[in-house]
């Protein structure tokens, strides 16, 4: 829990235009693959469908958060402020799915 004045500087370390463009391209491509997968009945029926889709979604999520929201470059503090609640929200969601399964 050390919050100090280090890393206060962020403007200079932001990713560049090139990175932004690549991230956008990946976001687009993954979305295309997601929708494509949706239209393959055999794949939809398989056990791999849900995990694969969740994984792709998680990758997109992480990319936006890391690059567009600058969490990869910004102060540690922001990462803590975001990831902490995210974990609690995720755990609560999983608990709900479990509790309401029966």
């Amino acid at each position, binding site marked *: 829990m050390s919050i100090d004045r280090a890393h206060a500087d962020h403007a200079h370390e932001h990713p560049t235009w090139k990175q932004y463009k690549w991230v956008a391209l990946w976001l687009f491509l993954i979305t295309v693959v997601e*929708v494509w*997968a949706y239209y393959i009945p055999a794949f939809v029926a398989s056990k791999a469908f849900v995990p694969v889709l969740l994984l792709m979604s998680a990758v997109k999520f992480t990319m936006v958060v890391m690059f567009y929201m600058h969490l990869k470059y910004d102060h540690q503090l922001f990462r803590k402020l975001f990831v902490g609640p995210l974990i609690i929200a995720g755990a609560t969601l999983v608990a709900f799915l479990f509790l309401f399964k029966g």
Partner: protein
Amino acid sequence: MTTATTATAGAHEAHEHTHYTTTGLDNKKIAIWAFIGSECMLFGSLISTYLVYKGRSVVGPFPHEAWTSPTGQVFKPILDIPVTSASTFVLLMSSLFMVLALAAVENKGKPGYEGRLGSSKFWLLATALAGATFLGFQAYEFTSFVHEGLTIKTNLFGSSFFTLTGFHGTHVAVGVLWLMTLLFIDMKRGLGPTDAIIVDICALYWHFVDVVWIVIFTLVYLIQ
């Protein structure tokens, strides 16, 4: 590192009337991240509810399956994947526009930057328009669902679907309003590096709304 820190602290003080902050970070940015953390729980609850109620509706229409009503009326699966894929794409691209708007504001006045990357006004407008387009898609989606017989009152799916996506749409609408406000300020007096923080917090909000949609798109639309 030391020089960099001092430099930012200096710029920061000029902006914030020499107010000292413990971390050297801007208060607004800490607050918006705390807010985003809080929003994780809000959308977590909405999504949980949607998933818990998935498949529990006693009458149709349903998201992914066709349904024949007791009176013999046939409803097709209601979710329209092609249209939503298009709106998803628009929202994803709006995030790209947003980072470019922020970069343009942060680098305003640097030699050669605007010519290469476009002005902050352009990108702010592009982001707002993309957001408005997304809202247009959503309005189309909602009205066509109502025409097909699914309202917020029809069944559990209708209630939880319209509430979840409606909340997201409201967030987008607030974001569009926010972007338009920034655009207005930019046109009136110009946004420069010292204003980067007010664009930054709007950008963080906007991207968060985008990542929420990434999750909704997968969990609500694609997974059956």
